[in-house]
């Protein structure tokens, strides 16, 4: 009634500044994203090459390279975060404080523009963050294939070859290893009853730690069925998990009780809905 609300707020310089800042932010994000894509695309074949070249059974050279690459990507992520915190958020706050009260219609156009600016910049940043996560996941999955089945079969043949070639260290009597042990085990001499300690070869000991991966390789098709189901079918996951643990138990029968407890826990974890 006093004509207060008829005085529209007008600041074309601010609109221009918002436009320029938004444009700069998009260009910056595009550049960062291009660098990320370039790095990931170039790194994946190199990672696979290092995995295949690495003679260490734990593939530690591959792990070192992967860690270095993830560190590099984290730096890009950090750069994006810092730019948002030093350029976008302070600009939004400073510009917002210049505008008339939000409740008045005088600065409505500017408030709306600033809100659109905020949403556009934040959405672009979220897209970049998604790309970062996709890139890291792609790097993590970039490794050569180790045919664990072939390793396992070779060790089984090796065990069959050596299992009757031991003698008691006390009396020299012939001893037979009754089954494939993965850890050092007492074996009793059938002649003098002495307790001999049988230590399996390093490769067989390693197999014990690869048993789960081998079982997963054997049942990968079942996991794939579950992953491909839409919506995700929990019955298929249960089917995969049971089959995987059955295979695991076949490889390391001594661990059935422990594995069964682990199976129950995984099953329970999977049935909990995480929000």
């Amino acid at each position, binding site marked *: 009634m006093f004509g207060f609300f008829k005085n529209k707020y007008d600041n074309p310089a601010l609109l221009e500044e918002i436009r320029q800042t938004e444009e700069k932010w998009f260009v910056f994000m595009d550049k960062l994203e291009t660098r990320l894509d370039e790095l990931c695309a170039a790194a994946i074949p190199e990672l696979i090459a290092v995995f295949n070249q690495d003679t260490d059974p734990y593939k530690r050279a591959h792990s070192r390279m992967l860690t270095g690459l993830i560190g590099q990507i984290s730096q890009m992520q950090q750069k994006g975060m810092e730019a948002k915190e030093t350029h976008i958020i302070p600009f939004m706050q400073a510009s917002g404080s210049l505008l008339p009260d939000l409740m008045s219609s005088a600065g409505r156009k500017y408030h709306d523009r600033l809100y659109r600016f905020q949403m556009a910049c934040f959405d672009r940043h979220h897209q970049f963050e998604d790309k970062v996560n996709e890139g890291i996941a792609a790097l993590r999955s970039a490794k050569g294939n180790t045919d664990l089945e072939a390793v396992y079969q070779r060790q089984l043949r090796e065990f069959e070859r050596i299992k009757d070639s031991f003698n008691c260290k006390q009396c020299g009597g012939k001893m037979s290893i009754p089954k494939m042990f993965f850890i050092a085990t007492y074996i009793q001499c059938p002649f003098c009853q002495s307790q001999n300690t049988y230590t399996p070869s390093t*490769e067989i000991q390693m197999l014990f730690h690869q048993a789960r991966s081998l079982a997963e390789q054997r049942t990968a098709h079942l996991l794939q069925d579950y992953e491909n189901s839409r919506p995700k079918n929990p019955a298929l996951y249960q089917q995969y998990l049971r089959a995987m643990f059955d295979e695991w138990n076949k490889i390391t029968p001594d661990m059935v009780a422990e594995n069964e407890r682990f199976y129950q826990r995984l099953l329970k974890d999977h049935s909990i809905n995480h929000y």
Partner: protein
Amino acid sequence: MSNAEKKNTQSYLERLKQQALSQENYGGAVKYDQANMQVYDCPECAAARAPADGLTVCAYCGFKFMTVELSDGIHIKKEN
């Protein structure tokens, strides 16, 4: 991305690869041992251990092979 930036990425990856491959693993290279059989005789009287007499004490001279109390494991049970 310009050619110069592509070159930078390639040289960075090459350096990283060389570093990853040339760095010595903690604990050195893995040693591969063959399967073997050993026996732990009593250091006092040279008698061997037998499960029937217990694994922790020499049945002949009473020497204690181990002072810990056995618990149930995969291959060893507490009654051993």
